[in-house]
């Protein structure tokens, strides 16, 4: 009967119910979209780093965790040094990663070295880098910027000539030759990272120690690097940011349910009086209000999850290259739990208010 009372009330105030669902759903969507974005961006970056096929990443010792960008420069001469003087190094490749428009990065590399290390890019359209001003972009970047082969792409105040569209998943979305990028950035013969492929992965620890003992550089196995760099808890501020968003979700859920239930209690003062007149206890009245808030919270969660699919579709359609987003079902119950906590807290005041109604005054309410 409690269920019937709750559902009949929601059914008879469809606009209030729908608005409540919508307003509760918005923070759920916000939480799920941000979680999907952070997860998607990190996983995408990690997968692209893994796609290089390297065993060890070498950076300047001052580098912090994350994607290396100028000016954490390493002299390019180290690339040949690693090839010739460090045991077990089969291939070495220096790259420059430079931010163009957050979070996109342009990568300068030697295409032959990259092909040798990773197996090379796959070209659905066009071909590799031949001239100094040639540029490659991946399919997502091309889609987002509506680029066709032959187009001029101006980046870093330099006109580049689009010669190839590559499949994503390997290191970079936007690729130019290492030498051209060094010239455009005026950074001389420096790189930001050096990737090493060894003759045998079993030698990773040895080479890692060797480099750190003989050079003032930071070397780490790619497996360790990708796990550490692309883990949400290791990205400075990201976890805190998520906590703030969740807190906002609770506050919005609380405020919406509180307002909605307060209005509902006010509108139903007479009905509460009737229920009390026929023997409804304070706890019975409170139970109805809380149950209604829980239904609003659950409905809002479901709507929020559905809207997160909408946000997912929009992001993948409009900015597939800049933002990578995933649907994270693991967070559905978490977002739902956060919403229900907010809804329960929000319903408490109007619920207690309703339970404390004087039945005679409530019955006289017009």
């Amino acid at each position, binding site marked *: *009967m409690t269920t019937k009372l709750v559902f009949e009330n929601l059914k008879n105030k469809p606009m209030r119910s729908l608005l409540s669902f919508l307003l509760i759903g918005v923070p759920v969507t916000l939480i799920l979209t941000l979680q999907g974005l952070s997860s998607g961006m990190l996983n995408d970056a990690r997968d692209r780093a893994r796609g290089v096929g390297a065993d060890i990443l070498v950076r300047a010792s001052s580098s912090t965790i994350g994607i290396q960008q100028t000016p954490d420069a390493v002299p390019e001469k180290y690339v040949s040094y690693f090839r010739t003087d460090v045991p077990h190094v089969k291939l070495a490749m220096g790259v420059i990663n430079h931010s163009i428009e957050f979070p996109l990065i342009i990568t300068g590399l030697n295409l032959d070295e990259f092909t040798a290390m990773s197996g090379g890019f796959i070209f659905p359209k066009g071909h590799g880098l031949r001239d100094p001003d040639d540029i490659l972009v991946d399919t997502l970047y091309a889609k987002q910027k509506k680029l066709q082969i032959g187009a001029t792409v101006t980046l870093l105040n330099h006109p580049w000539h689009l010669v190839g569209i590559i499949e994503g998943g390997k290191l970079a979305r936007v690729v130019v030759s290492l030498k051209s990028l060094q010239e455009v950035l005026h950074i001389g013969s420096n790189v930001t990272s050096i990737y090493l492929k060894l003759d045998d992965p079993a030698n990773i620890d040895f080479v890692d120690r060797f480099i750190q003992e003989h050079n003032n550089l930071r070397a780490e196995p790619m497996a360790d690097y990708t796990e550490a760099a692309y883990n949400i808890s290791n990205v400075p501020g990201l976890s805190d940011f998520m906590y703030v968003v969740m807190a906002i979700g609770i506050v919005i859920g609380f405020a919406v349910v509180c307002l909605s239930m307060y209005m509902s209690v006010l509108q139903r003062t007479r*009905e509460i009086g009737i229920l009390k007149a026929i023997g409804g206890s304070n706890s019975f009245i409170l139970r109805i209000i809380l149950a209604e808030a829980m239904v609003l919270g659950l409905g809002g969660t479901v709507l929020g999850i559905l809207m997160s699919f909408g946000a997912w579709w929009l992001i993948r359609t409009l900015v597939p290259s800049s933002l990578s987003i995933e649907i994270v079902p693991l967070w559905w119950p978490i977002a739902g739990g956060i919403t229900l906590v907010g809804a329960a807290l929000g319903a408490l005041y109007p619920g207690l208010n309703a339970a404390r109604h004087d039945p005679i005054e409530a019955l006289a309410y017009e």
Partner: protein
Amino acid sequence: MSSGTAIEIQDLRKTYRVGKVEVPALRGVDLQVKTGEFLAIVGPSGSGKSTLFHIIGGLTPPTSGLVRVAGLDLSALSDSGRTTLRKKTVGFVFQKFNLLPNLTARDNIAVARYIAGTDGLSSKDFDEVLRLLGIDRRLDHKPSALSGGEQQRVAIARAIVNHPAILLADEPTGNLDTGNSQAVLEILRDLNQRRGQTILMITHNPEAAAFAHRTVRMRDGRVE
């Protein structure tokens, strides 16, 4: 009519506080109602009829005096005790029907059974009452689709569904036309005669009062 006492009231007083002003609504009411009696209470507005009803029905506590309803001393009852009284011992019929607008007639009756915890029990005898009230074919309609007379009959069904010791009817015909008023009064009389239901009815209408065994008049917070 049985010889037992359904309601015993001695020197009942009720004072409301409006801001800093104390307003005496009942100034020493004495009344006895026998089990199975149909009693009409008449009197002008402000004479204390409704307050007396609210106290007998456990909607508000008395300020002083003795009120015993079906053997229960109301002055000793807590808020939850009065809730239990409303749940099981008294049934209300209001002038404005006071049905829950979102529920069907059937659910309006069922909610009273649910609250009293009797919804699992057999209702064979109650089906008979529904036929008696003439609403057995209107149970799946919401109040907005029922006439005033039908709504009041549903309200009566809700009030007696848990077999209360006392049925309190506050101006039950106040919002009804003559035909429906007559029908509702006959139902009340029928319930009293066939089922021995003790009934207290507030009314302004002398014709309605004539349906009762006895009429008491209230004035200025006292029974005359």
